[in-house]
Structure formats: structure tokens, C-alpha cells
């Protein structure tokens, strides 16, 4: 009996091995388990066995049945996998090196730089304010201590409107409103579009962007200003920079400074960009003039503060290697689309 079973099992095993298609498997299966199969016959023959031998034989037959079932399942999976592999291998092969279009638009360089700066300032707890572009003479000049015949007005050729308003010549035009809105203490930046009546060339535009900031609290000092500017600018340029102050005259600050940073291209050793000096003049700043604080409703005896202005257009040019200031307002997509990272 055992021998018989062994030979049956071996016989089926060999037949399964030689199967190639699912159909063949099914045929072999019918042959192996069908009513007329050897296994079935063997089961039928069990009646002739003694009561002692019968359970043992039944167990053996069952074991063989289970074993063979497992072989069938394995073989079936094997054939199915093979079939899928073969289908995939015969499918179309694509050329993955074909160029694809980016289909992405682009943000304006000013927007990109402005947002980057806004993020830095927000992380330092600054409020970001949006100012007007048409301003009153008061906000643009008087409120920042530039009186009517102040020579400082020489430096800023103003676009005047027929109703006496003007296109703001600097972001400082927002200082008064922001001080009145928030009072002290105060940390705010206000980027914006500014206008000067100038002839255009590669480095002069009548429409450009500045970003101005103010920090007002009790006992804000020159030492604080230096610390802040050094850290802020190092973050902007992603490089550890040194700063130095030189006297600078701006009516809305006292003392006023021109701030130089150590050249970010040569590290201060001297190169073409910094004209061998190792320093680059970057932004005007200073302690806010007591009169300006006062006009903004802040007591200059109790509070002090500093203000600074950054040229966003200039920063955008530096960052993206833009050679001509006029490109920024040209709307020329051959330039601007490059900002999307395309081409």
C-alpha cells in the first residue's frame, strides 16, 4: 500500500513538473484526483483492509493528497508569474530620455526675494506690513522729518500728482502710519514699490522695490542695531558677514549710518565686486529721529528704535545675477520664465 502510494505520488510529481500551461495543470489535476484516478481507486480499495489498517491507510492517502494539492498550487503560481513577466517583456518600451516640458510658471524675482526676507523677519518676530504706493506729501516727507526745502529732497526726484499727492519715493513713507497703528514696542518690516523721477539705464529705474524695517522699544541702542544687522544680513546672504557703520545723513534718523557688509564674494579680501575694498555699501540705517517718533505718537524720551532700508531690487539682481535693472519691469518672459527654473 505504501509503495503504491509512493509510486502514485512520484508519478503525479513528475507530471506537474512537466506542465507549462495552466490548462495542462488542470488536466493533470483531473487525472490525479478524478473518480477514475489511482488515488480514488486506492480509497475505494480501503474497504478490503482490516479495521486496524484502515485508519492508517486513510491517513497516508490524505497526506499524499495534501502534498500533491500544494504542488499544484505552487506550480500554478509559478506559471502565472511567468505569464505576467512574459507579457511585460513583450510590451512597448518607452524612451525615458525624451525631453518633457516643465509646464510651470514663474514668480517674479522681487516676489521671491521679498518672501525669503519676510520669512527671515517673521522668524525674528517682525510684523509684515503692506503700504500704499500713492502717498501724501506729509507721510512721504514731513512725517519723516524732511521739511519742504530740505536739501534731502534733492536726492529724490519725486513724481507729483495733479492733486498734490505723490508716488512714494521711499518705503519710509509708511513709518508714521505703522507707528500710529501699533505704538511701541514695535517690530515691523514694510516692503514696497517706490518711484523716483529718473532717466532709465542699467542701474537706474524710476520704479523699484525697497524693504524697510523698524524696531522700537525701551533702550534700543546702536549696539543692538549692529548686532541685529549683522545677524539679519548673514541670514539673508546665508553667510557669516561682518558689518561696519559709517556716518550717513538721512533726515529720519539720528545718528544715521551707511552700513557696509564684508564682501560676500571674496570674504573681505578684496575683489572686483567690492572694488578691492573688502566692503560693500548695502543699506542706510540709524536710530529713529526723536521727531519722527514723536510725530508717530511715540514718546522719544521713553522709547528709542532703529530703522533700516534694504534695496530689494538690488538684492534680487545680486541673487539672480541680473545684469540690468530694467529687466525687472520689462515683463520679458525670456528672462522672467527662467525664474521658474525652466530652460
Amino acid at each position: 500500500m505504501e509503495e503504491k502510494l509512493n509510486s502514485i505520488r512520484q508519478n503525479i510529481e513528475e507530471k506537474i513538473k512537466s506542465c507549462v500551461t495552466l490548462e495542462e495543470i488542470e488536466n493533470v489535476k483531473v487525472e490525479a484526483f478524478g473518480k477514475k484516478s489511482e488515488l480514488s481507486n486506492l480509497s475505494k480499495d480501503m474497504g478490503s483492509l482490516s479495521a486496524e489498517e484502515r485508519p492508517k491507510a486513510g491517513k497516508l492517502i490524505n497526506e499524499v493528497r495534501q502534498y500533491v494539492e500544494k504542488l499544484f498550487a505552487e506550480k500554478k503560481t509559478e506559471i502565472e508569474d511567468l505569464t505576467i513577466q512574459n507579457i511585460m517583456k513583450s510590451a512597448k518600451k518607452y524612451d525615458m530620455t525624451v525631453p518633457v516640458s516643465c509646464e510651470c510658471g514663474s514668480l517674479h524675482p522681487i516676489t521671491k526675494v521679498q518672501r525669503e526676507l519676510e520669512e527671515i523677519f517673521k522668524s525674528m518676530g517682525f510684523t509684515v506690513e503692506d503700504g500704499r504706493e500713492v502717498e501724501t506729501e506729509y507721510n512721504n516727507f514731513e512725517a519723516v522729518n524732511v521739511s519742504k526745502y530740505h536739501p534731502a529732497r534733492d536726492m529724490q526726484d519725486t513724481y507729483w500728482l495733479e492733486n498734490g499727492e505723490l508716488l512714494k519715493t521711499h518705503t519710509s513713507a509708511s513709518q508714521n502710519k505703522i507707528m500710529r497703528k501699533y505704538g511701541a514696542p514695535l517690530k515691523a518690516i514694510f516692503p514696497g514699490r517706490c518711484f523716483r523721477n529718473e532717466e532709465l539705464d542699467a542701474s537706474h529705474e524710476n520704479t523699484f522695490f525697497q524693504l524697510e524695517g523698524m524696531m522700537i522699544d525701551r533702550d534700543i541702542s546702536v549696539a543692538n542695531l549692529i548686532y541685529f544687522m549683522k545677524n539679519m544680513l548673514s541670514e539673508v546672504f546665508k553667510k557669516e558677514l561682518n558689518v561696519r557703520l559709517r556716518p550717513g545723513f538721512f533726515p529720519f534718523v539720528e545718528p544715521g549710518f551707511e552700513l557696509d557688509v564684508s564682501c560676500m564674494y571674496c570674504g573681505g579680501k578684496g575683489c572686483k565686486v567690492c572694488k578691492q575694498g573688502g566692503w560693500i555699501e548695502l543699506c542706510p540705517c540709524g536710530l529713529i529721529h526723536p521727531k519722527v517718533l514723536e510725530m508717530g505718537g511715540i514718546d522719544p524720551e521713553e522709547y528709542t528704535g532703529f530703522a533700516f532700508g534694504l534695496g530689494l531690487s538690488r538684492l534680487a539682481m545680486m541673487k539672480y545675477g541680473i545684469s540690468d535693472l530694467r529687466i525687472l519691469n520689462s515683463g520679458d518672459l525670456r528672462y522672467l520664465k527662467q525664474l521658474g527654473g525652466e530652460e
Partner: protein
Amino acid sequence: MFISINWIKDFVNLDGENIDEVIKRFALSTAEVEGVEKKGENLSNVIVARIDKVEEIPESKKLHKLEVFTGKETLQIMCGAPNVREGMLVPLAQVGSVVSGINIGKATLAGYDSFGMCLSEKELGISDDHSGLMELFDVEPGTDIKSVLDIDDVVFEVDNKSLTNRPDLWGHYGIAREIAAITGRELKPLEVEDLEKYNNLPSLSIGIEDTEKCLRYTSMAVENITKHVSETNMRIRLYYAGSRGINLLADLTNYIMLELGQPMHAFDKSLISSINVKSLKEDTEFITLDSNKRMLPKDTLVICNEDIPVAIAGIMGGENTEIKDTTNSLFLESATFDPTAIRKTAIKLGLRTDASARYEKTLDPEMTTLAIARFIKLLKGIDSGVEVVSSLTDVYAKHYPVRNIEITHEYITRRIGTDIPLSQMENILKSLGFGVETKEDIMYVSVPSYRATKDVSIKADLVEEIARIYGYDNIAPETKNMELKIVREDGAKTVDYIIKDLLSEKYDMSEVHSYVWYDTKKNKELHIKTEDNIKIINSLTAEDSTLRGTMIPTLLCMLDKNIKYMSDVNIFEIGKVWEYPTPNEATIEKKNLGAIFASKTKSEETVLNTALQMVNNIVVKTKNLKVSFREIENTAKYNWLNPINSSDIFVGDKCIGYISVLNLGIKNAIDKKLNVVLVEIFVDVLNELEYNEIKVNDVSKYQTVTFDLSFLVENSVKFEVLKNIIESTKLDNLQKYDLVDIFEDTEKLGDKKSITIRFTLCSDEHTLTTEEITSDREKVLEAFKNNNIFIRE
């Protein structure tokens, strides 16, 4: 302004100082330095030599063969200068000398050897005079020229703009005071004539009619002037300082101006009888000493002799009283005028002079007498025979207030952020000429008159004085702890950025920046008509003077510019626009988004659908609200609107903008093959809408059921009509409905179209029964039937 270190050394002993370092510290403490030039650096081994023999040569009319004695030997020199003369002393560059950085070697001219060259003043670098050789007097041949003339000097240029607020720094003496303070050295007093000894002489006749504009007028008269040419060393200084020699008297007035910052004017005394300073009552013609005839407008401040103008106050003298090279008597003016008046006149006349540039800065009236005392001292030193013939005549009409400031040590320390000892603060202020008296912690500071006209008036000004001389580099950076304050985002900015990201990332749009005024010329070319709006009164061109009231025209101009290079142009800008409802009242500033989709390859419908989707998405992403579109009633408002295909965009009952296919006229002007859709969104209005907070609904566990219905409607019927019917019908289990298809076919459907809508039903509580489904379906059909819309069978 150019500053000569030699000149500075008249007032400060700089022995042992590194001059480059001094200039650098000046730049860090006082004013911007634009450049440093080492004068005489490119000139060496030039000596004084005597021309002993001048010989003509047949080969040249111009060249002479000279025998020149160097003190040691006689050299043959070939020279083309017209003024060669036997016995003349001239500068000589022998073989081995350096002139203008070039090594002088033996040369051959017209076949003759030349062992060096004789030099003009220009070749020495001390003037522009190249008319002939420089002539020297009373010098031994062989003397090094640099021991006779002050050729070696260091000259640095100070940026005038950085001196705008420092009237005291417009002369060498003021700069010397700064350098003395920076280097901790002593400032020498100015050598001046004692004018009191002339008090008994007759005074001059001076009247100030306009005491608002003329603060002070001081003068003195001198006669018996015999010298007319300035000493060379004085001329060199003037030249290095950017001026140029004219004649002794004119040079001296310039010299005083460059030394003290006080402009002076010299009249020919024989032509002056009585001075009157007044404003013109009417426009008057006047010839200035540069020989230009000018029309002086009414109100111009002038200096008159009797009633005849002889100078434009503070700007330029007149030809009628000009000092000539032969003038031997002098009426000297040293005056102070109102800075605003001078500035206005200089701008009106387009005539800005060294004098007016100084007066504009608000000069110290106390300087007038000092300048005269200095002038007389220098003149007598040069021309000992001169005779002062008047007393100092001084009309002082208006004084500036005396400034005294009380300041505490603590006040200064709080603002600088570094503890500087009080005694050091005191010393700094004193070195700059301030009077200081200290009691305990308080300094009582009196501001010197030359700083008191406008520059120093409050405590903050003293903080600056102390900090800058102390040295900004010596202040240690220090952080500041501030109270924690929540930073609130400016909501308007957030909306801008959401829109910018959406448009650039999802809709392949490029952000542009345009000018805020219309390009009227370009608009005309493209047939774009713009409304009248507020104008800039002083723009560079009349065409660029109207501020924009909408974003579309500037974007269309940019479209036109770009479409030459590409088949698709998608651009947008968020910018300011203005309304000017009432003349002379304030403008209303608004923020709009303008967006343009233009394509040569896509159909108009495709472009429109993209734009519609963009509009929907803008409102969803910024406010999570739904938009609706209403046909624009008055499409004549803007001529870029399409009369058929244009809609106002609504959110609820708020109009937030409009969308339109571009009007054909403008489209054809740009490119006939283009399909263009434009959108303008009123960002301020959008921003005011409340954000609709997102709430997530549970998804039903039960199965959804869908059925499609096709409705047959007239072509003109909008989807919105169907939508309104569905939404006003109460259905029990409607989850959503979607447009599947709009089918138009004139052959099959004539002037009708079929709109297929898919209805999705579902219940949160149970699986829907056939009865429930049928009931909702029947309700829909009933509702449409009531509106005379039937199913397409």
C-alpha cells in the same frame, strides 16, 4: 570736495600719523571718501635748471636747441615751447627722471640729441597750463623742484552728498577740526588780522532791505594793491582742491572759501559807492561774470550798488563790477544769506556754483568777520603795500538762536549701548569745539555757532557726535530681549501669496511687474482705450503720465511684447490701481490681480475653461467659497471686454472681478491667430470675504446609486438654469450632481442642445431602496417638466 592734506597740516600736526589710516578713520567717523590721490607720486628727480642758450635750428620752426645748466653741467635739450628765453629758470626732467609716471630717457628730435625735457605746469601736474614752460624765480639751478613747490600732497575726495547736513565741513579748516578730534591732536588757531585797529577808519555804506533773506553782510575796503598774480604754492593748493587760478584777488576769495567754507565776493571798489541788499520787484536782466545774460525773476535776492544790481546774492557776481587783472582797489563782501532763498534761485536759474552749494547748507553767520580777518592777513602777507581804507562794516540783521543742550551720561549710554566714561564724552565734545560743563552726571553743552545753524539742536545729535568719534567699530554688538508679542500676518499678503503660488504652479503663469502708468502710445497702437485718470504732473514723457485704473492694459502691452517669441503667453500681476473720483481730492488706491491667458495653439474654449477653472480655484484656495458668473451688462465700460463672452465674477452678492474673451479689435491688433482670455480680480474685495472654514463630512457606509439624465434645452440656456432647478428641488437623498456632457449637433438637435447630468444618491442610514431612488428621480423630472424642460429620449 577735494581735501589737501598739506592744507590740513597747516592746522593739525600730523607728524607720525599714517595718512592713509587717518583718511580711513575720517571716512568711518565723519563723511564718505570717494577716492585718495597721491599727488607728485608720478614725478621724481625733476630739478630747477637755467636756460643759458637758445638756438634756432633749420630743420624745425618750432623746435629750439637749448643749452641748459643743471647746477653741475650743461645739457643739450631740444624744446618746442614758445616761451623759451635765455636766462630763464625752468623745471627740467633729466635722463632718469620720471614725469607722469614715464621714465625720461635720451631722445633724438629733428636729428639732435636731447638729454631730457623742460616742463610746463601741466606736465608737473600742478595746473592745466600747457601754453609754455613754467618759469621759476630766485632758485639755484640744481634744486629739486619738490623742495621749491608743494607738489607732493595727498588729496582725498569727500562725497558732497555726505556733507549735506554739515555746513562746517565745506572748508579745510572744518575738516582739520574733525581730523584733530579723530587723531586726538590739537587744532591750531587760525592766523588772522586784528581788525579792531581799523575801527577808526570810515565805514562803508551798506543797507539790507530784505532782512529775511540776508542775515548778515560784512565788508571792508582795501586799496593800493600792486600784486596781481598768486604765488605758485597757493595756486597748486587751489588746483588740487578743484579750483583754478585766475588772479590774486579772485584766487584769495576762492582760497578763503576752500579754507573756511565762507564764500566771499570781491568787487572793484572804484565801481561801488553804496551797497543795498534787496529782492527784485520785477524780472530783471543781468549779465553775470561768466558773460551770460540771465533773466532774474522777481523776488531774486541781489546785491545792488545804489539801485543797480551788481551780484546775484550768494550765487555769482556781475560782469559790471568784476575784478580785472589790473584792479588795485577792492570792496570785499563776506555775507550770509537764507539757504532756502539761495537754493530756490539757484534751481530757478539753473546756476549752481561753489558759493550757492555752500549757502544752501545753512552757513554760520559768525564766519563772515573771521573770513575777512583771514583774507586781510593773507593779502598783506603777499602784498605788503596794501592799505585797508575802511573799518569793518557789519550789518547783522538776523541771528540764529544760541543752542544749549543738557544731557545725561545715562541718556547717551542707553542709546549707544556701550558705557563710555563721562570724561571721554566730554573730551570728544570739546575736541569738536563744543563748550561743556559737567555737574555730576549731567553735561551742559553749548553748541558752537558753526554747528548750531541746523545740524546740532537736540540730544540725539550729541549722541551721534560722541559715538562717531568714539568709533562705531568700538561698539560691541549686543542682542536685545524684547517682550514676546504674537506676530499677526497681514491677511492681504497671505491672499496675494496664495494666488501667486496657485497661478505660477498650477496654471503655468509667469508673474510680471509693469509700470503703474499707462503707455499711452502703445495703448493706441493696440487700440486699447483707457479711461481718464489722475496724472503725474512731472513725468519724463507726457505719454507716461496717467496712472492705471485697471491692470489689463499694461498686461496686454506685455502680451504683445512676448507673443513674438512664444506660442503661449500666460502672465499675471498683482498691482495697485487708482480711482480719482473727485478732482483735487485724495485718490483711492486698490489692489487688483490681472491675468491673461493667450495661446496660438489652444482653442478659445480650452483657454476660457482654464481661466474659469483658475477663477474658481482662486476663490476656493483663498476663501473656500463658490463663485458665480453673471453676464456683464455694460461691456462698453472697457473696450477690451467681449460683448458676448464676458462675465462679472460674484461670490455671494459681492462682485470680485470679471472674466472676458479679449475683444476682437485688440486681439487682431496683437495677433489674429491668438486666443486670449483675460481676468481681473479685485483683491481687496476678495480679501474682505470671510474664510469658510473647511469641515470634513463623514463618508456614508452605504452604497451610492447614480443615474444620468439628458435634458434637451435651447442653445441659449445656460447650465446655471438647470443648476438652479436642481438646487431648488427638495430631494431626499441627493449627495451630488455633476455635468457629464453637453452635446450640440445642428443636424440631430437643430437649435437645441442636450445636457447630461449625473445624479448621485446616497443615505447615511441605510442602503437605498428602489422606491427611494425612483422617488428622487421622479421629483427631478417633475421639477424640470414644470420649467418646460424635458428629457431627451
